[in-house]
Every structure is written in C-alpha cells, then in structure tokens.
C-alpha cells in the first residue's frame, strides 16, 4: 500500500502543489513507524503505510517548528481527518492549505501489540479506538490510498466501560479515579500528543495566579485531567493519542469518550465530521435543556 502513497506524494512535490508532505516513515526499530516531513520529490520513497502508522499527524500542523509556509500534503487516517476538520473549524488552518492524502484504514496495532512485536491485525492486537471506528474511510480527502470501505458495526457497545462506571456509586467512581489519577506525573505527554491541544499558553502554564497545579499531587492531578477533558469537550475526536502517549497508562480515553457521549446526547453533535458545522460549545440553541437549573 506504500507505492500509491509514495507516487502521489512525489507527484505533488514535483508539481509544487504542496511545499511539504507530512507522513509516516520507517521507525528506528523494526515494525515501527514515525512521522516524517519531506519537502523534495526524492524523499517521497521514504513514505510508508503500515499497521504501525499510529500517530495522528494533524498535531504537527499547529507546531511552528514543523510548519512550513505554503500548502501541506498530509497523510491521514479517518481519525486524523477528523482532527484536521476540528482544526479547520477553529480557524487554525484553512481547508485550501491542506491536500489530504486519505488512507483507507483497517485499523492500527495497539500500543501493547506493538510492544509485544505483533504484526498481524486481529481483534486482540487492534487498538481499542479502531474497534469502534466509524471512519475506516476518511470522511473527506483529496486523494485516497486504498479502496473505500464501509466501517463495520462495532462488535461491542463503544460505551461499555463508561456505562459500567456510570452505574457505580459516586464514592466508587471517586475512588476509581483517585486511584487512576494517582499515577499522573504531570509530564503533559497527553497534551503534547493531542492535535487539539494547541494553545500557545496552556492554562496550566499560568503561574500568577496558578490555576492548575503543576506538581504531581492528587489535587492538581484531578484538576489537570478534569480540565483537559473539559477543554476537549465537543472537540475530541477520539484518536487516542493521549492514552497512547501516557507513560502511566491512565485510561484518558474514558474521560474523553464520556464527554463525547454527553455532547452527542445533549446536543446531537459529533466532533470532526463536518468542518462547516459550528462546534457544540461555541454555539447554543435557545431551546437547550436546563433541567439542572432551578
């Protein structure tokens, strides 16, 4: 599958339709991939498309270190295109500035599967997010690598774990999250990996006054993870990079998916499917529910 990708990238760079192509190249270890940034047609042969292409490359569009002036060709799976759409909605990049090289994606390997050296895609080795994916073919693209495929019905309820937590008592949930968040070391890898955490100055950087503590301490851990989940409410597209990046294996996707579920139920909105739509928390309906307000 790498050949059509390389050919297209080479063509785009030769014709100067894009100034840069952001894609995946061979990783430092066998069976791994890593982001690469190519600006000449000769480099196009470095591009690969394998089960190890897990990164969400949209994250590089808002980093000044990796952004070159001009149009960008970006290699994107279905989940990655959703991130691109949110960036367009939020005016971080214009649609015209992107040439989306879409990937028809069967799924990628989970962090655990890659660590164990697995190379086949099965229900066990697939990343969790892929098991519930509805965009195996990206919603939009300028060129598609592979054939269009329909997304299969998820074999299980995507909200299974969330519903299980919702059915517990508040005290049990508090204990669960205190336990999980106790491992947080405030490395902010989650923030760095997230394509939608692009604030030049994150709220946690502000120290006069300090709103969110930086030290790895129960109180600040709760504030950080809760507020990041809230700042992503109505924006998170479920790429799971935060959870993959977390060195302490905190189930961050539970928080993000819970909020995505709330936004869908309360406002009928799913992030990243239509870049012309208004983001859920940036707009309102005079008829929004207010059953919680006396």
């Amino acid at each position, binding site marked *: 599958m790498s050949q059509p990708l390389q050919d297209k990238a080479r063509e785009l760079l030769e014709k100067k339709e894009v100034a840069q192509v952001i894609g995946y190249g061979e990783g430092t270890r066998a069976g791994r991939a890593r982001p690469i940034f190519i600006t000449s047609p000769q480099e196009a042969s470095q591009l690969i498309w394998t089960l190890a292409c897990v990164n969400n490359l949209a994250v590089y569009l808002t980093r000044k270190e990796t952004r070159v002036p001009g149009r960008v060709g970006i290699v994107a799976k279905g989940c990655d295109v959703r991130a691109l759409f949110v960036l367009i909605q939020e005016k971080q990049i214009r649609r015209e500035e992107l040439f989306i090289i879409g990937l028809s994606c069967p799924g990628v390997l989970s962090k655990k599967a890659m660590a164990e050296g697995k190379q086949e895609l099965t229900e066990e080795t697939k990343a969790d997010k892929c098991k519930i994916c509805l965009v195996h073919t990206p919603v939009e693209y300028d060129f598609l690598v592979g054939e269009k495929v329909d997304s299969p019905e998820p074999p299980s309820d995507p909200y299974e774990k969330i519903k299980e937590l919702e059915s517990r008592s508040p005290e049990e949930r*508090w204990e669960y999250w205190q336990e999980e968040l106790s491992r947080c070391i405030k490395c902010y890898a989650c923030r760095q990996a997230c394509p939608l955490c692009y604030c030049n100055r994150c709220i946690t950087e502000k120290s006069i006054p300090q709103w969110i503590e930086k030290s790895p301490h129960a109180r600040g851990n709760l504030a950080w993870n809760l507020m990041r989940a809230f700042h992503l409410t109505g924006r998170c597209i479920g790429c799971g990079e935060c959870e993959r990046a977390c060195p302490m294996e905190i189930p961050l996707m539970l928080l993000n998916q819970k909020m995505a579920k709330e936004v869908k139920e309360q406002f009928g909105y799913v992030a990243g499917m239509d870049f012309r739509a208004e983001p859920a928390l940036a707009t309102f309906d005079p008829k929004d529910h207010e059953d919680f307000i006396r």
Partner: protein
Amino acid sequence: MDSGLTLEGSSEERAKGWEPKITAFVCNWCTYAGADLAGTSRLRYRPQVRVIKLPCTGRIDPLFILKAFERGSDGVLVSGCHPGDCHYTSGNYHARRRFGTFRKLLEFLGIDLRRVQFSWVSAAEGAKWAQVVDEVTQKIWELGPFEGYRRISD
C-alpha cells in the same frame, strides 16, 4: 436563626461546629442585583454563602468551580440571568451548554452533583435568591464537609 436544620453524620468537623462554606458565582446584572434586592428588602436567609460577582455567567470558567472546592468550599452555586435576559445577549446560553456538560464530567469523576447547583435569578427575584440560598445551604448542611477534597488537599 436556623429553623428546621438537620445534622447528619458524625464527622469530626461537624462535632467541632462545622458550618458549610458555599461559594456563589453570580452575574452582576441579574443575580447580584437580585441578591441586593433581598438585602434591601431585609429578607432573612442563611449566611453561609460567599458571593463572587462576575459580569455574566458566560464568564464563569468551570475551573472556578474546581478552585472553589480546592480552596475549601463544600458547595458551589452558579446563578445568572434567565434565558433571553442576558445583559450581553447570549452569555447565559453559552454558560448553559458549558455547565450542562461540565457537571456530567464532575459526576463521572465521583463528585456529588448536589454540591454544585445552578439557578436563574433575575434582578427582581430577591425572594427567590433567599429561597435558593436557603435550599442550597440546607442541602450542603446535610451532605456535610466535602471529605473527598479535604483528603486530596493534604
């Protein structure tokens, strides 16, 4: 004068004469004016609420609610203009969506939602302000000190 008070639970703090600390984030144009009216009308209501005035509920960052708990509040009240009456036209509509989702996140993390209350109180509703404060304070009296946050603040 506290009538109809019930004290449940037997935590140390209660034994030492604990009273709830409730932080109220209110909008300047409606609820704050309503609270002022309650005052000029000499209405009597529970004194455990501390009012923080903001121009609009749309200015209230959900982070303020967390900060209030971190700083020792046992309950938080957020109150503003009725839909359609916002001095800035739509601030309260944005707040409604924001808090409609934020409270579900708090609930998911195990925070008792009875500790976070919301109301629309207009500038003319002095009596409603007094009633809302009384009801919220009574609820927090019953729930007791926010043990969870006390423990993680050590």
